[in-house]
């Protein structure tokens, strides 16, 4: 890789000796020799295996739960239901005051998505736990379900989550996150062309090679060590502490080695119930998702719908942009209110547009709760925005890369969410891309800089 010293020459230090140098990863020797200890590489005598009984319905009232057959099954040590969980209704972002608590550790009275955890079975072997889980009888009254965000937002749609009481997250700004900048309608009125397009995506599963899980060992002094592949160690510890109503100093989390995460291991799902199992039985507990659970149960990236309306001038300037974004949270919030909010700040893209209007909704449906995944809240938005940019360039008959140079944000430009642009390098990146991809642009664009307008 060549480091072009002409870029940002006044900010450069030439004594950098790491950049551009290959450095061995510190964890690779462990990986290639099979010595790296993943959470599941621990084994404790007397360890119990936890299996979940899951909802077969997308939306149903639970009339009754009968665990008597499961409890009698050979090898079963403990069967847990909602009443065993000290603080059963939680939400992970409560740590940063984003409530309300809206999700149950074990279903209580209702299930809101197909696959929701209802009863936990702990047994001497995986097989005994599996067999006993199949013997738990849950009597459901199936309720109408809603799977489409627009349907969910219509009046009269079934209410997915009573803790919200409506099928969208209520921000302090109201039913959606809003960005208002300039006068978008005036912008459209003065534009040479207006283009409105709708972009949609489906949920995407991270599919890490190592499935989600943890192993919990009681230390014998009312403290518990939790070996976990969470990507969010302290976040999980704090939420476990709330759910279990146990001070954090009783919980010792060991982890950091993750067999692929991509954001799929930041929810707090397996640890609290496994710690509870260890506490109530006094035995080590292993709770590891099967491959099927990893694919069907763990949170995916949210499905999104993005409606973009742009006003553009023949000379290439985008003069107005209106975006309505919908994030499908599924049945529970998890990280989605935050993802939808990120989208609101992001939709202008790395472009300077004088008139912007953005609404982003976090919508509840009876689908698998979605959550974090690599750039969630902006990745699908970026796909939509850049496809839109290509379409706009085509509409006015302009080269798509030159079109982006014209609109690229530069230092000092005010962004729609009122953060002045600093440290922009889009122009320089596009100049490099133009060279590398052999996609020439006019000389005036190659002479531009992120520093100054009008160059």
């Amino acid at each position: 890789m060549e480091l072009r010293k002409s870029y940002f020459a006044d900010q450069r230090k030439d004594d950098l000796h790491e950049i551009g140098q290959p450095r061995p990863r510190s964890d690779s020797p462990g990986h290639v020799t099979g010595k790296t200890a993943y959470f599941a590489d621990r084994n404790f005598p007397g360890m119990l295996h936890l299996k979940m009984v899951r909802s077969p319905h997308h939306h149903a009232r639970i009339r009754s739960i009968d665990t008597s057959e499961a409890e009698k099954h050979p090898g079963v040590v403990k069967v847990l239901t909602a009443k065993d969980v000290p603080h059963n209704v939680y939400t992970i972002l409560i740590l940063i005051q984003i409530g309300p608590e809206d999700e149950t550790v074990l279903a209580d009275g209702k299930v809101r998505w197909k696959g929701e955890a209802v009863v936990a079975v702990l047994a001497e072997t995986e097989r005994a736990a599996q067999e006993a889980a199949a013997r738990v009888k849950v009597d459901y009254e199936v309720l109408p379900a809603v799977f489409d965000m627009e349907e969910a937002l219509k009046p009269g749609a079934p209410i997915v989550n009573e803790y919200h009481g409506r099928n969208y997250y209520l921000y302090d700004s109201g039913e959606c996150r809003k960005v208002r900048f300039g006068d978008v309608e005036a912008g459209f009125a003065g534009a040479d062309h207006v283009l409105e397009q709708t972009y949609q995506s489906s949920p995407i599963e991270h599919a890490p090679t190592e499935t989600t899980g943890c192993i919990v060992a009681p230390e014998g002094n009312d403290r518990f060590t939790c070996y976990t592949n969470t990507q969010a160690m302290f976040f999980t510890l704090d939420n476990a502490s709330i759910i279990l109503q146990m001070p954090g100093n009783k919980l010792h989390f060991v982890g950091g080695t993750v067999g692929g995460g991509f954001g799929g291991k930041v929810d707090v799902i397996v640890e609290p119930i496994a710690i509870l199992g260890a506490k109530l039985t006094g035995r080590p507990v292993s709770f590891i998702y099967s491959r099927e659970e990893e694919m069907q149960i763990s949170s995916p990236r949210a499905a999104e719908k993005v409606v973009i309306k742009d006003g553009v001038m023949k000379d290439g300037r985008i003069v107005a942009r209106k975006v309505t974004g919908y994030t499908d949270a599924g049945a529970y919030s998890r990280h989605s209110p935050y993802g939808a909010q990120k989208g609101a700040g992001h939709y202008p893209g790395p472009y300077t547009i004088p008139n912007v209007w953005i609404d982003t909704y976090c919508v509840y449906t009876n689908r698998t709760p979605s959550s974090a995944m690599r750039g969630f809240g902006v990745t699908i938005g970026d796909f939509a925005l850049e496809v839109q940019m290509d379409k706009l360039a085509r509409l006015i008959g302009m080269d798509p890369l030159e079109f982006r140079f014209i609109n690229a944000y530069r230092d000092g430009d005010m962004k729609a969410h009122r953060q002045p642009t600093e440290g922009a390098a889009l122009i320089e990146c596009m100049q490099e891309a133009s060279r590398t991809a052999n996609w020439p642009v006019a000389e005036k664009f190659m002479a531009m800089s992120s520093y100054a307008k009008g160059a």
Partner: protein
Amino acid sequence: MAKVPVQFTLNGAEKAEFIDSGTTLLNALRDKIGDTSPKGGCHQGTCGACSVIIDGELRLSCLTLAETCNGAAITTTSGLSEGGVLHPLQRAFLDAFATQCGFCTSGMIMAAKVLLDHTPNPSRDEVVEALSGNICRCTGYEPIIQAVLTAARSNSQNAA
């Protein structure tokens, strides 16, 4: 449940265990014998993370019953380095950035070893084919393919 005796060599060492009938080789190696280098990514024969070598052949240990391995010679990635010196495949995976989270790595190395044992100078296509049963979600495969080709080259240089 009545236990079944199994006896085999693991990386050259004699091992004997009593297991529950029906225990997979993967679980026997990991939980009973304590070799956790084979990983369980799916327990259903689709990811390759549990790959081991049994009598010279590549096998998925999650689909192999331990009791069928009596008398077998089993090799796992944890047995490849000798006296602290990495096997050429291990060296190549390390140098070529062919491992990120590492969860697929020991299975990949097993698949690559069987290939190179049978085909010391494989073509790129042969490498791709040999690794086709092993899923990696992190590296994007190209560094892994390059690592196997590099190891093959260094093997043939050493032999020359």
